């Protein structure tokens, strides 16, 4: 089970945390939009192709990679490269692997977008780390749930409720000057977080 723990080092101390994801449904419950037919039977969403030839029910799609000739490339054959085309080595999962903690200023958290919140529980919290957290210190570490190429940032903090980890990604927001008012409309990598935002678990 050690593999499932977040292990952090502070000075000479090492602390292993079990973690539980904090999500809205566990805190507040949730709201669901249910579609019923005329007989009161529950219905499911599906895709209708533009030519009307196919109805694709849930589970009816597959995600594949294709080359320039539209031939399928197996995932196991894919190679990850950087912007210059140089091969990249994946980062291993950090679960179960000790990661050093670095103290950070609270404003550092504002530079990142939180993707997950974990409630942490340590069998034995290191004395120095406990004191620092009690004093209100905030820490940063590297976090990678599974092997991959883009590790996340993990913030460790304590509040009145307990000890938590915030898993986050850099926003990359830059300072804007008078000369550069335009956002890049052509950027295909842009993620509009509010587009197609149909979360019905409202406050």
């Amino acid at each position: 089970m050690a593999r499932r723990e977040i292990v952090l080092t502070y000075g000479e101390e090492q602390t292993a945390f079990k973690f539980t994801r904090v999500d809205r449904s566990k805190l507040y419950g949730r709201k669901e939009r249910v579609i019923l037919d005329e007989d009161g039977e529950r219905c499911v969403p599906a895709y209708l192709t533009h030519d009307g030839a196919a109805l694709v029910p849930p589970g009816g799609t597959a995600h594949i990679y294709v080359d320039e000739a539209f031939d399928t490339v197996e995932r196991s054959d894919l190679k990850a490269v950087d912007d210059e085309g140089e091969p990249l080595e994946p980062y291993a999962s950090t679960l179960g692997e000790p990661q050093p903690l670095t103290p950070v200023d609270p404003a550092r958290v504002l530079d990142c977008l939180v993707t997950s919140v974990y409630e942490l529980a340590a069998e034995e919290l290191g004395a120095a780390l406990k004191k620092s957290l009690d004093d209100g210190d905030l820490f940063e570490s590297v976090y990678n749930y599974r092997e991959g190429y883009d590790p996340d940032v993990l913030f460790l903090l304590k509040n009145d409720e307990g000890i938590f980890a915030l898993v986050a990604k850099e926003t990359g927001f830059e300072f804007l000057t008078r000369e550069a008012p335009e956002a890049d409309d052509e950027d295909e990598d842009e993620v509009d977080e509010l587009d197609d935002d149909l979360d019905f678990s409202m406050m």
Partner: protein
Amino acid sequence: MPRLISIMDAKKRDAQIEVDSPKKKERHRYVDPAGNPVQHQRVIKGTEKTTYEALVAEAGDPDALAQALIDGDPELDLDQVGRRLAHTSRVYLGPAGNVLYVARILKVVYDAKGEEQSREDFVDVEATVGEELPPIPWTGRLMPIDTVIRRFAFVRKLQLRHVNGLTFDFLYEIAEALQKENKLMLVGAGKKGQSPLIFQTNGTPFRGFLEGRVQDGGYRLVLHLSNLEIKRVTEDEEEAG
């Protein structure tokens, strides 16, 4: 694509400006074994004719379907499988796989234990922030950064961007004022800024915290959005894991 919203400053002046989400920045891309670029595609794997229910109905019963699967490939809709899925319309299918033309939409509420609490007809919740909607008011409710980041998880962020020279000055001044205070300003919709920020019909309601920084003649004004408090979800006696 950036969208427009209106916001008010401390002098009660409002202006229409752009908001932009974080760019997805991945340090890697995939290539094939020869180093040539590859594209991710979503394709059709099955259709309404190849669901389990449809196949059982076609075969007569599950045993007959099992035999049909041994004898052939009824689960493959060869006219459609492998087609690239693009430009689709959203429809709803009934239990028999039929397209729904008349629907009743319900809102079902569950508590934190997953138990149903109520169900009623769904009513659209309109956006509270947008191009044609009143500005986000200046509340003046400042909170220390250290307090806020320990209480709320910022799960969405929007950068406020100027659209011309006038709005550059407008936003720069807001950012400068907030930096001087070194605090975040709690913002919301409505006249007093007490309503949740909702950016599109039936969108997620958020609480907003405005952060401003200035540097070398530039500014960075970010609206941090949260719908999640940083709270325990396990019982005291329960072990996390």
